């Protein structure tokens, strides 16, 4: 008897289990961020740019999953993001492996809270930046030639690690969340000094 069908089912179930784990990664990120007063901007959404269309089966599977956070009390001009890059299908960049990234965007002081928002593509900004997957950050700010006023923000930083190295809560905290919050703290502290 052929075992192909069983193998196929096993693969599909493995994929489902893997997505369940990625969901726990992001929910755990929510938990760690909330301990430092960072709240998710969207209560439960974490996916986008997919398709329900019968013709676009390749887009039935997510290519990224992400959570956006704000801390209106301490950092009212900042949006922080944790993104899991799963695939680069029809993206403008190539991935060699799935990645977990941390990024943040700082908006001008004069910007009001209701105008502080980001387009979806910002969740995958690491794709366009030149970063080594060892936590070393890359940054863009309003002095650089590739920055555009239409972005709305004036400074951003992003870094990443291979997903296969972020396999449980402690790794997530040590490699993604803690450095992300430290970078925000360092930048915003500097900005306050120069004000």
């Amino acid at each position, binding site marked *: 008897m052929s075992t*192909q069908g069983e*193998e*196929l089912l096993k*693969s599909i179930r*493995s*994929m489902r*289990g*893997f997505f*369940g*784990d*990625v969901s*726990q*990664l992001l*929910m*755990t990120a*929510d*938990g760690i961020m*909330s301990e430092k007063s960072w709240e998710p901007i969207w209560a439960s959404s974490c996916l986008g740019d997919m398709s329900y269309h019968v013709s676009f089966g390749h887009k039935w599977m997510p290519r990224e999953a992400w959570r956006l956070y704000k801390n209106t009390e301490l950092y009212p001009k900042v949006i922080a993001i944790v993104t899991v890059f799963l695939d680069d299908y029809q993206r403008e960049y190539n991935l060699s492996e799935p990645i977990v990234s941390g990024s943040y965007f700082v908006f001008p002081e004069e910007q009001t809270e209701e105008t502080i928002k980001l387009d979806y593509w910002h969740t995958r900004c690491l794709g366009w930046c030149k970063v080594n997957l060892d936590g070393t950050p890359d940054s863009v700010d309003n002095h650089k030639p590739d920055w555009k006023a239409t972005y709305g923000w004036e400074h951003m930083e992003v870094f990443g690690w291979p*997903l*296969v190295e*972020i*396999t*449980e*809560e402690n790794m*997530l905290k040590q490699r993604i969340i803690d450095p992300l919050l430290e970078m925000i703290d360092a930048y915003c502290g500097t900005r306050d000094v120069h004000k």
Partner: protein
Amino acid sequence: MLQAMIHGKLTREEEGLEDLLTSNTFGLMKYLPPKAVLLPFLSLARDPLRDRSLASWLQGAVKVESFRFWNSLEHPDCFRCEPDVHIVFLHDDGAKTWVLIEAKYRSGKSSEAVEDTERPNDQLACEFDNLKSISQQKGITRHALVYLTTDYTCPEKELQESADEYERKRGSIPNLYWLSWRMLYDVLESADYSDNGMIEDLKKLLLNLNLTMFRRLRFPELKRPEWSFERIPKFWGWRIIRPNWLFKRRELSWTWAPMPKRGEWYFQK
């Protein structure tokens, strides 16, 4: 039922029964020494409204005096209620701590605050109301209600709503604590009784139900299969429907301009 739950033999409806989860988890904890799982787990409960932990009250607990499930409570001044788990701890100094646990899995509180009655009606407020009144009768000074949910972060709003109704109607702040099912896995992992079969089964149960924090990334299972779909040769064919009309042929003709005669023209230099 525990083995059926571990091996995925239950329907989704059965699996979602919070009573079944409570029974399988606390049912096993009842037969383990309290310091193995029960005390470390409950010690993680915290009161977000007063920023304190249940650990300080459980310190010095040496014995479980009473461990009951779905015990009905009805003080004459309160609405009747049925918390999921009722535990009375006995301390080394003879003191007692009474802990009620209201466990949730895929549903929220069963009742909410109402204005038209003097008694607290919100599920947590009502349970604490009974707990406090009966504790006072029994002379138990330390009593707490633990709201056990699947959340990753504390559902502060739900606790605040319960506390607000209780405070409005009884004039004091209730001892409401929150705990997540997801914290149990780590307690089991660090238990000294790690080779105990009951603890291993509890861990399997929590993993099967995905009731953990981020503890695993199952990518080794995602390997490229050793087989592939065979490509089927494509033979496309279709019947041509012949039209019952034809383009009408027309005679083609050109009118040539008469060739100029030799000597009547020349290239301009």
